[in-house]
């Protein structure tokens, strides 16, 4: 009923460097999908429709990190086309797993993957959207959580503040009745440092949280790092942070140590690389 009387916000969904998983989450809303299209006008969503629009948008959902010169131009242009810009997922929020290259010698990496590196245009870094343009809201996760996506759209429609908690994963883990995999299992779990929203999936499935929702407010990385370091070698603890949110400020130091340890910092002799080893 509301759907008719209020004008439908014009929504765009675009991607930069990413796996498409976060925008797929929109299609994964399944039974909500068609009701949503009655209330929001999907004017740009290349993965789902051939109907196109270059804006202007009321809301633009941006997936993926900025990792090529074209993407840098594109995101600046898109910011000008939209009233609200919402980044969805670890790539857009924190640079994604591909941000590990930010500490490595990118040309060497390119050479290692591509026999003829010159064919490939790429920035030396993979960076969050917010490092380049203003971001109005972000959905965390690798991938984002469908309930949070729905809450964001609902809040947008009702005009309330989206209920996206900043608490640690531990609260939801305990509410679910999981047994702590860190205290009882000795697994190196990042849940205490990680922003909630996933529903504490990993501990519920018997494994340690790997922080795919990124660091929560005031994440006390040094403390947990030090504690885990009592049982594990430092490089192993560092590697925990070299994941899908490695480039997020609180995780940077350990992540950088991990990358440098794994790759050194110069082009390696074997860099002619696996791409060509057939």
């Amino acid at each position, binding site marked *: 009923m509301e759907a008719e009387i209020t004008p439908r916000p014009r929504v765009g969904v675009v991607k930069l460097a990413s796996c498409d998983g976060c925008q797929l989450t929109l299609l994964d809303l399944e039974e909500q999908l068609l009701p949503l299209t009655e209330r929001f006008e999907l004017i740009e969503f290349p993965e789902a429709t051939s109907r196109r629009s270059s804006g202007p948008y009321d809301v633009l959902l941006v997936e993926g990190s900025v990792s090529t010169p074209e993407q840098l131009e594109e995101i600046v242009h898109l910011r000008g086309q939209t009233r609200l810009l919402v980044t969805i997922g670890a790539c857009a929020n924190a640079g994604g797993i591909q941000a590990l290259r930010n500490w490595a010698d990118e040309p060497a990496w390119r050479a290692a993957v591509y026999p003829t590196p010159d064919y490939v245009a790429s920035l030396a870094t993979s960076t969050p959207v917010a490092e380049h343009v203003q971001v109005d809201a972000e959905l965390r996760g690798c991938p984002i959580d469908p309930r949070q996506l729905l809450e964001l759209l609902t809040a947008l429609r009702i005009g309330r503040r989206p209920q996206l908690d900043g608490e640690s994963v531990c609260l939801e883990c305990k509410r679910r009745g999981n047994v702590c995999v860190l205290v009882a299992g000795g697994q190196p779990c990042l849940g*205490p440092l990680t922003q909630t929203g996933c529903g504490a999936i990993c501990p519920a499935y018997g494994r340690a949280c790997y922080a795919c929702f990124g660091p929560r407010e005031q994440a006390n990385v040094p403390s947990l790092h030090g504690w885990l370091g009592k049982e594990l070698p430092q490089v192993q603890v560092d590697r925990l942070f070299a994941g899908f949110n490695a480039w997020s400020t609180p995780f940077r130091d350990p992540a950088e140590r991990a990358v440098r340890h794994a790759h050194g910092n110069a082009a390696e002799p074997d860099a002619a690389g696996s791409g060509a080893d057939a």
Partner: protein
Amino acid sequence: MVIAAASSPAFLPRGELDRLLDLLHDDGRTVIGPMARDGAIVYDEIRSAADLPVGWTDEQAPGRYRLRQVDSPRQFNFTVGPQGWKRFTQPPRVPLGTATRDGVKVEFETATPEPRRLAFLGVRACEIAALLVQDRVLAAGPFADDDFRARRANALVVAMQCTRAVSTCFCTSMGTGPEVTDGYDLALTELDDGFVIKAGSQEGERLLGKLAPGKADEAQQASVADGVAACRASMADQGVAAEGLPARLMDRLDNPRWMEVADRCLACANCTMVCPTCFCTSVGNVSDLDGAINHTERRWDSCFNGDFARVAGGNFRPRRQDRYRQWLTHKFATWHEQFGTSGCVGCGRCIAWCPVGIDVREELAAIAPPYEEPAAPPTPAPIRGAMLDGLSPLPMVSYSPAVSQPAPLRADSSVATVRAVAPETADTFMLWIEPRDAALLQASPGQFVMVDQPGFSPVPISISRVADGALWLTVRAAGAATQAFTSLEPGAQVGLRGPLGRGWPIDRALGRDVVIVAGGIGLAPLRPTIDAVLAQRDRFGQVLLAYGARTPGDRLYLKELDAWANAGVEVAQIVDRAGPEWLGQVGVVTQVLDRRDWHGRDAVAFVCGPERMMQATVSALRTAGITRRRIFVSMERHMDCGIGICGHCQIGPFFVCRDGPVFAVAELGDLFGREGV
């Protein structure tokens, strides 16, 4: 009867434990008991004794918990696991109700609890203590939680005395164990070949009668005594100096150790989640796409969360050290004042399940060690009802302390209709609403209401006047919910809950000079006092209203300010800054009080405004001769949900929404104006 039975324990052979379970099942009870799962002892449904964790035992240390198989027939050969019985008495998620909106119409439907009949099997002494603490917190007084009451009433307690302790146990020092003394229906103690069992209630008696076990012989009773004694002895060196701890702790609010522990604390909230007495909650909204149907649920929250203390006036505990201090001081100190007991039962869960092994026993020893002889007297904690001292009561508006000011725990708003909305200043507006239930008009000055729009979190708003069948609310459009008020049309419905809280003690001001100091929108909750004074002006002495605002344009109730001046109130207005067109005073509100003198005069002061303004005002008033017991402040900016037990609005021993928002400065003691409390 109970006594007799308790004094003559019986013996239940291990093989017959199922008979007890069958009895409980026959009573239509679901039995919840210990199970070994995912590397820990958890509480879950027990269908038969076979489900019990035979031969499992636990090892616990700060930040570490391990289960180990040992060659033993025992089924309860362990201490407490991660989960308390809180899980079943105050579940992680409880549906509160449904708020629906259809055009301008709204409806609120409150969920009614229908708990299962449960039997808790294997409740340890410390856990019984925790249940009794919950009773005081959630079931005692007018702020009782119906959901908790119902669940608790439906749960039978089968206790299990401890005959072994782990390194994290400290029940002995908290005086809660290992002996099971009360609060149980049946109490068992495990021996290798069975259980010594006794009844502790009529229901326990009845069950024991049906079970008809043989009498426990001397040897069996002796080994129970020995086992429990050995358990107690093993905890000798791992306790807390609980004697006088509350005063010591409140005396050490500035100990640098708070910062040191904050460097280790992850603020992950695990300690509060596993704590069997931590009760803080938050209310969440799940709305359909149109915000037409909104389900509200209450879920476990924690004072360690960054936004936990984000209330009407902002975030009052932004730093980790503030949050850790809040938790520890509440648990071990202010809890006593609030509920007449410690919040800690010594189960040690917060120690074992802290991901970085922070040990409260160590922190307490470092932060609040026993005083060196000669004992330095701790500064007395704030006195309840201090505000009444030195003020002879005169009957008029009955001034009611919090406890006789019941507020519902459930978010059951009643419907009210918007009569009008009108802008008051650039960022504030007036909202007139008519409650369907006239009882909501019975508000005393200084009280507030929760205004509830389906799909939004309810907003606490001080009542700025009650007149011609409507509540007059002055609202600052600061957030999404308040912003949404501005678009309400006359005739639109909202939810309303209240009036809540303790208002201004106007009756204490009868026959005395009255000093009213308001800052900015702080004038709103004070307007009813001015109305009340003017209603019988002759019964008060001199009345001064000192009103400070940011600029002339930010002043509320312009016309009324003049009217009051003409009606016998000295109205002194002062603004922070103004253009040349303003000929009135410029400066801070305290300048109005400078060089005034109430020494030897019988005066009472009512103050409301931003914290810093209230602090400056209070010191100015004290300089001018009004004592802290006669200066009343409204901490309305601390208010959040008005549920009375969620914990968000807590200041020291007070929940602002039910003990306040109005306090005598003497009540707040040195918590008034302190950072991060």
